[in-house]
């Protein structure tokens, strides 16, 4: 049984004086225990919305799904109180911009300690009055178990001098440190799944690499699954065991990372892989997918990628089929339905992705073993 | 503190005095649908009309004393709002008082606006030490409670309308300066300003013709709101006897005069008091409607 099993998720945002926005339209997502699963897509693909729907943080939206199970239990059947138990305790979340996601008037240590306290692993009161007293009157005692645990977590996520950092405020830390703090606070409740929404997008490359390493290490050590949301295929190649590719509210393809990179089946995936700088042929030009993603309201019927796809044909206006490329690897594209259209996709001017890759696919293989560990200095 | 009213002068919407025409439509919509705004507008209009046409509309001469009917209660046939202890008709006095209150409010806020906006524009536009110096000056201004200034002026020059105007204007300069300055800062680097500079328009022209029109909306809202506050301030001063001269019938003064008679002739104090509250409330409501229509985000509800 998958840790997280979502089937036919649809999220719609009602809009004043206007048509509702169907941000997510029929998404399937499965995350296995202990794996790192990448959720990839451009801006506007609906990946962040999907992530937030897992935590039931979307108050204004209408969410529907055939199945939305965590550990076999329907998340959307739970009461808000039960959901609060799950948040932080079973499922942790790491947000993109750590500076705005961390509370500016609380020390970093306190922000982690409160998660620890709240999830009852330590023998300290987490009631409203005690929390308020801690915040406004006395501060958290440095010897309290929740504080000690916070310091330990800071050390675990690779922050040097954790004692000092714990008493700092978010604005006093660097971007990389803040992101590690976010990760530490997500770990505070000892969750089984961490949803990381573009955790490295706002960081520069060296820092990004070290954070990603950190995530991999934590996944191994703590056996926590990570749903890693990103727009960067390079990140996926480096870090993820399996991948779901989203476009404009729907899933285009999903499977294990090595499978996807070696045998991409969907034209969109191929186009994405083609546009990674490392993928381009040595003497060719950098390529992009022409056009831009449609607004949710302007999505064409059937496959949302129709208008930009070089292989689009009549059947593409029909609802998306599922095509099993190989075991565990599915593409949703009409090209593969028997007796229809071309069975090969060629992007103009550049030979198919197969066989011309460098770097990325090797990384994908490495991810499968996860034995390579490049040491990168901390950011 | 930045305001957002749907784009600055670089878009093609038609504008009247710098405010996009569709904002007026929104205002119209708000006023016709929201009863609070409608009430506000009605009050404002009634007040302004009473003030302007007081000499024609008032049934009696506000100064005419009729000893025969001193302190007649309100709702008597001849004097709907009663008379004061000198036999002067309260309704007429109140209508004339409206005039003066309105004039004082407008004058004080207008002066504050001109000076304040001038300072703010200059500070924001030129930046550097001018900005620092001007802002320091403005800071000192707001360390000064207006009451203080009023007191000094009265102590030296005696009572009178101009003292009140000066004191109140003094207190509001900093409000306008701040708004103008922050508007300028947010527009200063926009393209159309730089374009104007390139054409060779002088600083003053740029400020007046390019920058100022975009700042009009928040300034108008602030103006309205401050007129209400000015009227409150003037009423307090007159009530205390350190505002206008004793015979001038502003509402605050009427209230002050009636205070000692509250037992026998309660209407002399209560009615002008109600009038003050209703009028100020109306102006505030209207100001709020303006703020919504013109899409101005104020500094968190300083009314």
């Amino acid at each position, binding site marked *: 049984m998958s840790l997280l099993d979502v089937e036919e998720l649809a999220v719609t945002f009602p809009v004043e004086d206007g048509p509702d926005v169907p941000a997510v339209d029929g998404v399937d997502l499965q995350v296995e225990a202990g794996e790192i699963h990448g959720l990839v897509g451009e801006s506007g693909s609906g990946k962040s919305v999907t992530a937030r729907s897992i*935590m039931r943080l979307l108050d204004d939206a209408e969410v529907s799904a055939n199945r939305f199970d965590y550990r076999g239990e329907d998340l959307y059947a739970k009461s808000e109180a039960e*959901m*609060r138990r799950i*948040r*932080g*305790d079973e499922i*942790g*979340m790491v947000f993109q*911009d750590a500076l*705005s*996601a*961390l*509370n500016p*008037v609380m020390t970093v240590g306190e922000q982690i300690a*409160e*998660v620890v306290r*709240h999830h009852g692993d330590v023998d300290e009161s987490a009631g409203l009055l005690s*929390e*308020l007293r801690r*915040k406004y009157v006395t501060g958290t005692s440095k010897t309290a178990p929740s504080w000690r645990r916070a310091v330990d977590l800071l050390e675990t996520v690779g922050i040097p001098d954790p004692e000092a950092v714990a008493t700092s*405020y978010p*604005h*006093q*830390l*660097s971007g990389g440190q803040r992101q590690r703090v976010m990760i530490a*606070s997500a770990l505070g*409740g000892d969750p089984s799944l961490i949803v990381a929404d573009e955790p490295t997008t706002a960081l520069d490359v060296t820092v990004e690499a070290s954070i990603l390493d950190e995530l991999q290490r934590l996944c191994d050590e703590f056996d926590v699954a990570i749903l890693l949301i990103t727009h960067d295929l390079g990140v996926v190649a480096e870090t993820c065991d399996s991948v779901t590719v989203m476009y404009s509210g729907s899933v285009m393809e999903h499977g294990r990372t090595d499978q996807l990179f070696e045998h991409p089946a969907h034209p969109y995936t191929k186009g994405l892989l083609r546009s990674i700088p490392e993928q381009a042929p040595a003497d060719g030009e950098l390529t992009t997918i022409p056009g831009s993603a449609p607004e949710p309201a302007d999505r064409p019927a059937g496959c949302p990628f129709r208008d930009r796809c070089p292989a689009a044909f009549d059947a593409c206006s029909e609802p998306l089929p599922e095509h099993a490329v190989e075991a565990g690897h599915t593409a949703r594209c009409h090209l593969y339905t028997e007796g229809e259209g071309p069975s090969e996709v060629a992007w103009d001017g550049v030979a198919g992705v197969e066989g011309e890759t460098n770097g990325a696919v090797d990384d994908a293989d490495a991810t499968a073993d996860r034995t390579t560990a490049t040491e990168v200095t901390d950011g | 503190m930045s305001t957002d009213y749907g784009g600055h002068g670089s878009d093609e919407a038609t504008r009247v005095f710098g405010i996009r025409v569709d904002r007026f439509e929104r205002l119209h919509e708000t006023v016709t649908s929201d009863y609070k705004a409608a009430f506000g507008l009605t009050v404002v209009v009634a007040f302004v009309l009473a003030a302007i046409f007081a000499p024609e509309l008032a049934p009696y001469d506000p100064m005419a004393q009729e000893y025969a009917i001193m302190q007649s209660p309100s709702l008597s046939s001849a004097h709907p709002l009663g008379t004061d202890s000198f036999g002067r008709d309260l309704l007429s006095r109140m209508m004339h008082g409206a005039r003066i209150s309105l004039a004082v409010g407008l004058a004080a806020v207008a002066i504050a606006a001109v000076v304040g906006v001038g300072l703010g524009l200059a500070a924001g536009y030129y930046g550097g030490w001018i900005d620092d110096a001007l802002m320091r000056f403005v800071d000192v201004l*707001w*360390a*000064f*409670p*207006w*009451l*203080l200034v009023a*007191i*000094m002026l009265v102590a*030296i020059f005696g009572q009178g309308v101009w003292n009140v105007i000066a004191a109140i204007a003094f207190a509001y300069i900093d409000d306008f300066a701040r708004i103008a300055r922050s508007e300028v800062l947010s527009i200063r680097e926009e393209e159309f300003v730089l374009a104007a500079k390139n054409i060779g328009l002088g600083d003053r022209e740029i400020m007046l013709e390019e920058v100022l029109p975009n700042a009009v909306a928040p300034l108008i809202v602030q103006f309205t709101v401050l007129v209400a506050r000015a009227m*409150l*301030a003037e*009423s*307090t*001063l007159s*009530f205390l*006897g*350190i505002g206008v001269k004793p015979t001038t019938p502003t509402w605050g003064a009427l*209230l002050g005069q009636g*205070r000692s008679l*509250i037992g026998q002739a309660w209407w002399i*104090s*209560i009615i002008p*008091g109600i009038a*003050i*509250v209703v009028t100020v*409330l109306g102006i*505030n409501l209207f100001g709020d409607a303006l703020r919504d229509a013109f899409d101005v985000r104020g*500094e*968190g*509800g*300083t*009314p």
Partner: protein
Amino acid sequence: MGLQRYVLKRTLQAVLVVYVVATAVFVAVRSVPGDPARLVLGGNARPEELAAVRDELGLDEPIYVQYFDWIADLTRGDFGQSIFTGEAVLSRIAGAAEPTLSIGLVGICIAFLIAIPGGIVSATRKGKWEDYAATSVAFLGVSMPSFWIGIVLLLTASTFVPFLPSYGYASISDGVVTWLSHVILPGLAVGLPYAGILTRMTRSSMLEVLSEDYMQTARAKGLPPRNVLLKHGLQNALLPVVTVAGILFALLLGGIVAVEVVFGIQGFGRLLIRSIERQDFPIVQGSVIVISIIFVFMNLIVDVLYTSINPKIRYGSEA
């Protein structure tokens, strides 16, 4: 810079501003057309008296000597004597200060007690009746002059709560309950308009905070809503409110003075008004300076308070 250095710097600035005010007063008095001595003594002074005052004020001496003496006197605490009682101005003012301070204090407390919970409820229940009610009350409060509220309270209180005295003041040394009973109505009259503004400010600040990312993080941690609101949101929301509260102290003053007149309280405000009526210039002048000192230092306290609760300013960026 550390908190202590900041406090020191602001204090020095404050003192400087006070001297600037004193200088402004000096200039104002000297630049009035006519004779400053007449100003001090009032219109009916006799020539000998005028001459005496002129001598005392050193008006025949060069202006910089006058100025120097003036500043020196002020620093020593010598603000002149009342024309009517001959009493030293400063001690006269000090004697009348207690009632005024009491009313001010009660007013501020009432204002905060209404505004902060009111603003929070208003923001969290935006659009619902609680919001509507709170906003309307705030609006009304802001549209009513303090003295009017005082008058209304006087009239209605005698009907509904007759045990509350409607006149005069009792010092706190006469018993806290007595003191409170005298001070509560004037305090309410002063505090309500202030509460109105603060409620709206708290509401809008809270609304902004509620939409901030870190509030979502707190929810994502599974914390109960009350914790999220009060522990994570409140302090952030209060920061701008504190700033505005300080700026608006000036509003209070006008109210307190008027309210003292309404309730017949022999406080500083009353003293001020009567001194103006009687043209007791030294007291008026002294009062102006005292008031500015109070205001400058209140702003200082608010500034320091703000700095100490805002870690971004207090600790700066050390990364």
